[in-house]
C-alpha cells in the first residue's frame, strides 16, 4: 500500500521463495515443541512494557524524497543505527522525525552493502539525545528467544505513533536474525530489541511468510563500529570461522547472489572469479543471498574444496576452489 513512498525491507521474488522454502522451513521446525505457560507470557509482557517508554524515545522516522524509513539513536551525541538501503550513500543528508514529532537533520555515515548495516549522525552539538544501547553479546539471541520490534511501517503517523511487534527469534545467521516480528515498508532501519531493551538487530528484509522477517544483527555494526561512524564503506568478505573465499556479495535486484568485489590473492581470484558474476550454487546447493552464502562458506573448514556454479558474461561454468584461512589483515 505504501510501496511507492516508503523504504521497504527488500522483498524477494516469489520464484525464489520456492527455491528457498526448504531452507526456511527446516530452520523453523525446531521451535514448535516449545510450550510457554501463561506465567511466561505475562513475564514477557511485563518486560516489554517496562522497556517500552524508554526505548521508543530513541526511535526515529527517516523522511526524504525517496520515502520513509526508521532508525534508532544509540549514543548521547546522536549516532543512529539504520539500514544501508535507507542511507545509500555516505554524506547524504536525511530528515529525521523524533518520537515527540520534532524534526532534525542527520548525515549518513558509513555503510556495509553486504549486510545492510549503516549509521547516521544527527547534526548539531546536542549531547543528551534519548538513546538505547546495542547488545554487546548476541549469543543470547538464539532461536526461541523473545524479542520485540519498533518502527514506522508505512511512514510516520502522529495519531498512530510507533508500532510494536512482539515475537521470537527463529534463526540466528552470521550477520542477521530471522524473527516472527512482522515487518513491512517503512520499518526498514528500525530496531529489534531483546527484553532488556538492547538493540539486537535492524530491520532489513522481508519474504512472503509472516515468519520471514530478517534483521541485520548488531554483529556487523559492532565489528565495524569505528569505521561506520567515520563514514567508511565497510567490506564484509565472504568468510567465517573456518574457510575464507575472498568474495564480497550481495543479493541483486533480480534476487541473485551478485559478486561485488573479489579480494586480491584470494582463492576466488586465483580461480578466475570476476566482479559482477553471479553465484548460483555452492556444492550443488542453491544460494541467493549473502547470509546463506556466508553460512555455506563459514561452515566449511579451510583447506576444503568447494564447487561453485558461476554465471558470467560467457555463460555458466563450474569453478572448483580450495578455501584458505582468513588473512590477518583483510584486503
Amino acid at each position, binding site marked *: 500500500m505504501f510501496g511507492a513512498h516508503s523504504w521497504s525491507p527488500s522483498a524477494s521474488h516469489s520464484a525464489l521463495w520456492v527455491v528457498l522454502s526448504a531452507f526456511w522451513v527446516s530452520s523453523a521446525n525446531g521451535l514448535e515443541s516449545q510450550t510457554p505457560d*501463561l506465567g511466561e507470557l505475562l513475564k514477557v509482557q511485563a518486560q516489554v512494557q517496562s522497556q517500552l517508554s524508554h526505548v521508543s524515545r530513541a526511535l526515529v522516522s527517516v523522511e526524504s524524497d525517496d520515502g520513509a524509513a526508521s532508525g534508532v539513536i544509540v549514543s548521547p551525541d546522536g549516532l543512529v543505527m539504520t539500514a544501508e538501503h535507507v542511507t545509500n550513500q555516505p554524506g547524504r543528508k536525511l530528515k529525521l522525525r523524533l518520537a515527540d514529532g520534532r524534526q532534525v537533520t542527520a548525515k549518513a555515515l558509513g555503510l556495509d552493502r553486504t549486510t545492510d548495516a549503516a549509521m547516521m549522525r544527527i547534526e548539531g552539538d546536542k549531547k543528551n539525545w534519548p538513546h538505547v544501547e546495542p547488545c554487546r553479546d548476541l549469543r543470547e539471541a538464539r532461536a526461541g528467544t523473545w524479542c520485540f520490534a519498533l518502527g514506522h511501517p508505512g511512514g510516520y503517523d502522529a495519531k498512530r505513533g510507533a508500532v510494536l511487534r512482539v515475537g521470537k527469534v527463529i534463526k540466528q545467521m552470521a550477520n542477521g536474525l530471522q524473527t516472527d516480528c512482522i515487518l513491512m515498508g517503512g520499518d526498514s532501519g528500525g530496531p529489534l530489541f531483546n527484553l532488556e531493551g538492547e538493540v539486537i538487530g535492524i530491520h532489513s528484509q522481508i519474504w512472503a511468510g509472516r515468519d520471514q522477517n530478517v534483521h541485520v544483527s548488531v554483529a556487523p555494526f559492532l565489528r565495524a563500529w569505528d569505521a561506520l561512524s567515520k563514514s567508511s564503506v565497510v567490506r564484509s568478505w565472504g568468510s567465517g570461522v573456518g574457510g575464507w573465499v575472498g568474495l564480497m556479495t550481495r543479493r541483486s535486484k533480480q534476487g541473485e547472489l551478485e559478486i561485488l568485489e573479489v579480494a586480491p590473492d584470494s582463492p576466488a581470484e586465483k580461480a578466475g572469479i570476476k566482479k559482477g558474476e553471479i553465484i548460483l550454487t555452492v556444492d550443488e546447493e542453491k544460494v541467493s543471498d549473502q547470509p546463506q552464502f556466508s553460512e555455506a562458506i563459514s561452515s566449511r573448514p579451510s583447506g576444503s574444496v568447494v564447487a561453485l556454479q558461476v554465471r558470467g558474461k560467457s555463460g555458466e561454468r563450474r569453478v572448483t576452489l580450495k578455501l584458505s584461512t582468513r588473512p590477518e589483515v583483510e584486503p
Partner: protein
Amino acid sequence: MKCGLIVSIVSIVLLLAGFTQADQPPAVTAALQSTLRVEKKDGTLCSSALLVSEDGYTLTKASEVRKTEDHRFVLPDGSLTPVREVERDSQLDLLLLRCEKTTGLKAAHLEESKSLSMGQWLLSPRDGGREIRAGVVSAKRRSIPSAGSAIGIQMDLGKLDKGVRIKAIIPDSPAEAAGLQPNDVVLSIAGEPIDKNQGVRDLIGRRSPGDEVEILYRREGRESKCLVRVASRAHIESYLSDDDYANGGVSLRADRFHDVLQHDVPLGPADMGSVLMNLQGQAIGINIARADRVTTFALPTEAFWPQVKKWIEKDRAAR
C-alpha cells in the same frame, strides 16, 4: 500455572488439536466457544461471527457478508444454523444476526477495554474458531479516516465520443471478478452516463466499500451490464504494491472507523468478526479489519456494544 500454549513459528498459535478441555486456559475456551464460521455456499470461509447473547444474537463484519442469504453459518460441531438479519450498520461495518441454534456455543462477555495498554497480550480465534492466536496491542487507539473507494480499473485518458475505455484491470480486483476486461468501454455507472475519467472516479468514490454498482459497458460493439462490488481504495492498492506482502490479503474495508484498537495478532481477512480477548478471558472487542501486513483493527467494546445492545433490545421487544 501450566496451561499448554504452543509457540509456533508464526507468532503464537494455540492449536486446538492436542488439548483436552481441562488443559485449555479459560481465555482460549471462551474465545473458541463464542465463534461461528461464516462460509460461502462452496464451503470457503469468508468471515467469523461472534455470539454476544445466549439467545442467539451474533455479530459479523458487514462488508464481507454482503448478502446474508448467500452464506451459511456453521456451529462448532459442524452443523448449520438458520439466521435472521436484524441490523446492518455501515458506520460500524457490523451485521447483527439472530441464530436459531447455538449448540456448542457460549456467548462472550463484553467488557470495557479502557485499561488496555500497549504491549498487552491479546488472543483471537483464527480459521473460524479452529485455532487461537496471540499478539499484543501494537499502536495507539485512534480513528481511521476514509481512504476512498475503487473497483480496480485504470482508465484510458484518450477522448471517446461516448464513455471511457478501460486501459487495464488490476488482478484480483472487483472489476476482474465482475468480468470486465481491458478495452471495454464503460458507458454508465449506476445509470449515470460517463464521459470522462474523473466521472468514473467520482461515481465510484462516492460509494461505500461493499456496495454493488451496475456498470453498463460496450465490448466489440455489443453493450452488456455487470454488477461490481466496490472495495476500499487501500484494498485495491494493496494488489499494486509489489513489496508489501499482505499475507492472505486485506479486508474489503479497513477505513472509516471512529475508534479502533490496533494489534499484531496474525489473522486473515476471514478472521474478522471474531472476538478479541485479553489473557483473563474477557472479551474486549471485535476484530473488524485487516489493513496490511502488520495492521489489524478491532472495535473496542465501548465503540459498538451500547449501540448493539439497543438493537437487540428493540428486536426482542418486537418478537
